[in-house]
């Protein structure tokens, strides 16, 4: 079977399975999976920058929150319809990632991590500062009446699942196309050997900036959809914790793989869900699992598949 056929089969198969699960899962897991798909979309955005371009941002929560607040404030303050609000969310992510990228990319390595972390912290404090609009830590609820997109009530579990699925499928397919396109291959080249990429005539800065913008905008889209589907917008989503989550998910699932972000998010979500049913020290269980994975599958779950089974895994 050709690489192309295998790629189509594998990724199409996952999407078909997720679509079909809608009709089979009990309500509890059904809701969980919708949440996982939205968070995995966030991780997919993060992975474009971290996994494929080799740039570790510790401030992605600012993009997620930019999307969430862009959407939420459009609804809350300007009474926008959900479709327009989603566009506002994505637009906010586009602008924030463009500006932050221009500034943060003047640094590299550890400095880039610190600069993105600081920008995200500034973003978090900005949200708290404008508490009269954002309601700060407490956040605000998006009412059911405000969540009706083209006549579809997104607070309904079935609709919500399909909306989450639509977001996840688009993010997955867009990034799959992207990393196989010449543009994506240049990003991988930059990750592997930046100076060599430059000496082949590629504008490294422009490619990195584009990667930050694609990554930030996908993260923002995920944030906007998350707020709309689950009806809540709050500053905790801009906190440093939400910058670390996508890193963990991507590391667990496999950085620089298309399926890695989803696998990692799903794994982590259920690891915490199941272990918290057994013990209150569930973070200990999660920690041990993380250490074990780091020891035995340092490239993450999908990374281990790529290493041992199929080298061409995109």
């Amino acid at each position, binding site marked *: 079977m050709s690489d192309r056929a295998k790629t189509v089969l594998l990724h199409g198969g996952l999407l078909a399975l997720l679509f079909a699960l809608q009709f089979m899962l009990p309500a509890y897991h059904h809701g969980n999976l919708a949440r996982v798909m939205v968070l995995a979309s966030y991780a997919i955005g993060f992975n474009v920058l971290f996994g494929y371009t080799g740039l570790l941002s510790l401030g992605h929560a600012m993009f997620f929150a930019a999307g969430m607040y862009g959407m939420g404030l459009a609804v809350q303050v300007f009474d926008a319809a959900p479709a327009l609000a989603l566009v506002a969310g994505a637009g906010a992510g586009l602008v924030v990632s463009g500006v932050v990228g221009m500034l943060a990319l003047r640094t590299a390595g550890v400095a880039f991590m610190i600069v993105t972390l600081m920008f995200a912290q500034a973003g978090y404090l900005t949200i708290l500062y404008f508490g009269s609009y954002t309601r700060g830590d407490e956040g605000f609820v998006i009412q059911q009446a405000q969540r009706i997109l083209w006549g579809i009530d997104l607070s309904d579990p079935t609709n919500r699942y399909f909306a989450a699925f639509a977001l996840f499928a688009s993010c997955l397919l867009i990034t799959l196309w992207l990393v196989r396109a010449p543009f994506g291959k240049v990003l991988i080249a930059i990750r592997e050997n930046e100076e060599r*990429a430059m000496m082949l005539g590629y504008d490294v800065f422009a490619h990195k900036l584009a990667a930050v913008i694609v990554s930030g905008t996908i993260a923002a889209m995920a944030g906007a959809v998350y707020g709309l589907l689950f009806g809540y917008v709050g500053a905790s989503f801009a906190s440093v914790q939400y910058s670390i989550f996508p890193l963990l998910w991507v590391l667990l699932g496999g950085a620089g793989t298309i399926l890695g972000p989803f696998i990692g998010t799903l794994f982590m979500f259920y690891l915490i869900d199941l272990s918290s049913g057994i013990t209150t020290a569930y973070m200990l269980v999660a920690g041990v699992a993380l250490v074990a994975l780091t020891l035995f599958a340092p490239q993450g779950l999908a990374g281990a598949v790529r290493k041992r089974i199929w080298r061409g895994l995109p």
Partner: protein
Amino acid sequence: MTLLSTRGLSKRFAGLHAVENVDFDLPQGQVRALIGPNGAGKTTFVSLLCGRIAPTQGTVIFDGRDISRLPAHKRINLGMAYTFQITSVFANLTVTENVALAARRRLRGMAMVQATEQALAQVGLEGRLDQNAGDLSYGHQRLLEIAMGLVQHPRLLILDEPTQGLADSEIEGFMALIRSLAGHTTILLVEHNMSVVMQAADQITVLNFGQILAQGSPDEIRADRAVQAAYLGTG
């Protein structure tokens, strides 16, 4: 016609004059060798040409245009290609993808695939297309570097010590390759292997302590007393 020239080109590293006031002219189509003892400033000089490092003073003119202020990637896009002295390939990518990355600057689709295959065949790596570049032997990585330069069809090909680490048979293949390019590709060759230099080069420039010590045909350089004293040895 002069393809590349420099005027008063200098680079100082914290007081050390790595390259000092170099006026250099390279006519189109020539194979020029750049030789000199270790530390003479050869790699610094070619790095100044292609923009890997910025000069302290002086200008670089390529095809009649002052490119002194252009960033490296723009100079490459004007038709320069550079192969690294210390092998710098994409170790985790396949041999084919390494060359394809170089080819995609100017070609797409089937033309890109064909150019990639052709460049790899030219250096004799056609049997190793799907290997990771990092798994190649050192000599083969050098050949891969050359293939990445060739596939760009550059107007000026800068080769920094291309034969370092190659076996004798591979050096012969390399010489044949240079001969096949002679005439239409201008080549600047930094090289230590004197038999390669003497056979391949039309003209030779000798650098010593960052300055041009001598310039001329292989025979003239061989006969030059100052060069013998500085470099070739008087014995």
